[in-house]
């Protein structure tokens, strides 16, 4: 049926006053539906095809032929059109990926979370010495680089942040503990998270120390 028909022209010739064969009618419906700028009604098909054609039947053949294909013969009200198969709609979207460097605020926040996890927002702000915007945290969460850890057992039960596996993946780390320079920084006493003088030191939870810092990573709260 899909073979080109060498006798086609001959047949067309002799059938000037009779309807072309069904296979030919199917081709015609296919071409008309393809090229017409709007869905085509049956009446329109009848008007455009040679006298005596049966476009309803041709359309039915064609519809079956396109079953399961990348496009489908679709009925739209009283008219017919060829449309993309619903499951392939995603091909009609083209994602343009734009790569940008993470902002300074975001990278600093991320670094603090990586080195100090689990860490609360208040702690991040204390370490950075500057406020952390909601947007920065949201951005890092959206990138799947940080997630919520368990709540801190201190007044107000603040939420903590930890880095994710996606983060480890991106930076090719087995573990946040592997962060280069972490031990060196600690040896230099630079990782001491001293409470600001005079404060009651809300971070007694920190006392659990390093083990805790890492375990937070794989605990699903």
């Amino acid at each position: 049926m899909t073979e080109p028909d060498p006798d086609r022209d001959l047949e067309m010739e002799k059938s000037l006053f009779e309807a072309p064969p069904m296979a030919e009618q199917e081709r015609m419906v296919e071409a008309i539906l393809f090229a017409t700028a709007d869905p085509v009604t049956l009446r329109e098909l009848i008007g455009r095809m040679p006298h005596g054609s049966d476009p309803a039947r041709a359309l039915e053949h064609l519809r079956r032929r396109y079953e399961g294909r990348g496009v489908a013969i679709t009925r739209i009200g009283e008219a017919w059109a060829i449309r993309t198969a619903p499951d392939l709609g995603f091909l009609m979207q083209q994602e343009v990926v734009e790569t940008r460097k993470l902002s300074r605020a975001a990278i600093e926040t991320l670094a603090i979370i990586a080195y100090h996890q689990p860490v609360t927002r208040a702690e991040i702000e204390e370490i950075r010495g500057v406020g952390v915007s909601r947007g920065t945290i949201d951005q890092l969460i959206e990138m799947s680089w940080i997630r919520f850890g368990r709540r801190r057992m201190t007044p107000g039960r603040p939420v903590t942040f930890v880095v994710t596996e996606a983060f480890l993946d991106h930076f090719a780390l087995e573990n946040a503990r592997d962060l280069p320079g972490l031990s060196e920084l600690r040896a230099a006493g630079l990782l001491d998270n001293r409470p600001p003088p005079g404060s009651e030191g809300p971070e007694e939870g920190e006392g659990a120390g390093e083990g805790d810092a890492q375990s937070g990573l794989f605990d699903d709260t």
Partner: protein
Amino acid sequence: MSDDEFETAPTDVAARLAAEALIVDVDGFEGPLDLLLTLSRTQKVDLREISVLALARQYLAFVEQARALRIELAADYLVMAAWLAFLKSRLLLPPDPEEEGPSGEEMAAHLAFQLERLEAMRGAAAKLMARDQLGRDRFARGITEDVSRVRRVAYTATLIDLMQAYARIRTKDEFRPYAFDRSNLLTLEQALERMRPLIGFAGDWTDLTSYMPDGWGGDPVRRRTATAATFAASLELAKEGSIEIRQGESFAPIQIRRKSP
């Protein structure tokens, strides 16, 4: 062409009609090469066997007629006529061994080639236009779907970025950006501000050091900056013509006084 008609019916009316026909014809030709191609068809031979000499005669006769009928011919046609007249003479006269340049035969062969090539391109154009054309015989998709472009921003950072960011935070107290310590600095503006009201009283030569602000003479750091600023301010005042400066010799005290108006 209509050579014969001019000879057999040289009436004014016929001449005028023919002249009009010629104007139309000349307009209808796409240049002299096209005219030559049309004329060559009267020879009814393959273009390869055409008599270029005969063709040149026909063309020149055509141009003569046009002239006789006072038809303005485009310069192209006249250039071709001149070239063909030259070609004709080369073809008819025995070759002059003294003369340089291509022979009549070479020129004739090239003209034949040009005619054949033009005719070939005409044929090619006709074949091209006879093909199934888009929008006439073949059709593109009628209902198109737009590909929507979804812009997604991917943020990246390297491990180095991360470490540097962390080091920056943790060490910002030790390594803050270098800045002047302003408490021990007398600026030029401050010195100027101080000197302006004072010079009004300096009718006579006064030592520059006496203009230094109080309390800036003891500490060497403060004295140096106060001296430099005051001196710079005095130069500024001298430049604007408010004071005069003098110095007895090298390293001698610098003295200033108000410049008399």
